[in-house]
């Protein structure tokens, strides 16, 4: 099964939940993957300290115009849906930062004047943290879209293997790419007005995508009951409430796991794991009945 951890708001504890859950689950599920899809600011490795066994760059093809062959017909520009090409007189200008590497221009060119040149967009890492498999990526600074790299990072997990996918913050394309194909999405929120506002947006997003989901309230007990109220009204399951505890911040700031670093915290993640498994099982049963 594939479980994506997303949030909407940044800093609610996605990575905290993801690394603790993944590490705890790897005790009984060898071969489980932790996949850091937050390739713009990956930090899961700070807690897991994986031994990186392989690292490779990822390249995307971008058009390059051979001006001697180009007759300025403009077919390439007409097919480009991303406004990455402009035709000024008979000269074609290329804006690689807008290009989505679809290859359309190369196919449309009738004079073979376009060649695709590889552009490095980032790196992919593979490794192991104890029994837990690790996959992650790092987007090069200045590269506008993380989506192709996230796709590649996700492809590191063999088809049948279980994985915990750690999503970036927000609800835009990189998050959509992360949760795509997941069996279940855990939305981590915090009981603050900001957390709730962004949770609502995240809920809308996963509902649109038709993905089953549940909520984890991190730093629970901050005396804002609105988040629980909202989940109740909307019929959203709260799978775990991790208490607001100064010790959690201390342990986190040392790059340690909460479930091993704080006595009594293991039960929150164990409970989350059990509820999650039950949820996914009940979903599978439902779909088998249908």
């Amino acid at each position: 099964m594939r479980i994506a951890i997303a949030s909407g708001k940044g800093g609610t504890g996605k990575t905290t939940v993801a690394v603790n859950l993944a590490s705890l689950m790897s005790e009984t599920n060898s071969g489980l993957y932790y996949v850091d899809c937050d390739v713009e600011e990956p930090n899961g490795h700070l807690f897991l300290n994986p031994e990186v066994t392989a690292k490779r760059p990822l390249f995307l093809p971008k058009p390059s115009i051979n001006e001697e062959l180009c007759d300025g017909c403009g077919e390439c520009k007409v097919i480009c849906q991303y406004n990455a090409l402009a035709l000024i007189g008979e000269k074609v200008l290329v804006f690689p930062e807008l290009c989505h590497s679809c290859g359309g221009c190369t196919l449309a060119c009738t004079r073979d004047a376009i060649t695709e040149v590889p552009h490095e967009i980032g790196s992919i890492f593979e490794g192991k943290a104890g029994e837990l498999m690790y996959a992650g990526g790092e987007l090069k600074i200045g590269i506008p879209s993380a989506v192709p790299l996230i796709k590649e990072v996700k492809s590191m997990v063999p088809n049948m293997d279980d994985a915990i996918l750690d999503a970036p913050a927000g609800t835009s394309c990189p998050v959509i790419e992360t949760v795509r194909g997941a069996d279940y999405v855990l939305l981590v929120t915090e009981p603050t007005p900001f957390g709730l506002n962004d949770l609502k947006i995240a809920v809308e997003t996963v509902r649109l995508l038709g993905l089953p989901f549940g909520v984890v309230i991190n730093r629970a007990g901050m005396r804002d009951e609105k988040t629980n109220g909202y989940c109740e009204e909307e019929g959203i399951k709260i799978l775990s409430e991790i208490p607001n505890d100064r010790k959690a911040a201390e342990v986190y700031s040392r790059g340690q796991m909460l479930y091993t670093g704080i006595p009594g915290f293991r039960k929150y993640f164990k409970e989350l794991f059990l509820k999650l498994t039950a949820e996914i099982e009940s979903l599978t049963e439902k779909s088998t009945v249908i």
Partner: protein
Amino acid sequence: MLIAVTAKSADPNSEVEPRFGRAPYFQIIDTESDEIKVVENSENVNAMQGAGIQAAESLANTNADVLLTGHCGPKAFHTLKTAGIRIVVGVDGAVKEAVERFKNNEYEYAASPDVESHW
């Protein structure tokens, strides 16, 4: 000489639109005949990306010599430069007045873009 001005509307009394790529209209004024041609830029107003580049290309097709606008980013700047269009940024007020100020040599051409991408 053809002067292109980014405009909020097609009306001759329109105000100057500060954005270049996503300006609703371009008014192209012929300084010799005072004739005004209006070019709609609606396609680029809602473009997902690359509005400045495409606006620059459509401006190049009007044979405009000069562009008067509020701001111009690096990609539009590069495209306009390739098309041989000279650029004045920081222009505001009414389109008509801007053209008069240009005729009175009150403006200087921009040597570089004045805003970053995705302004």
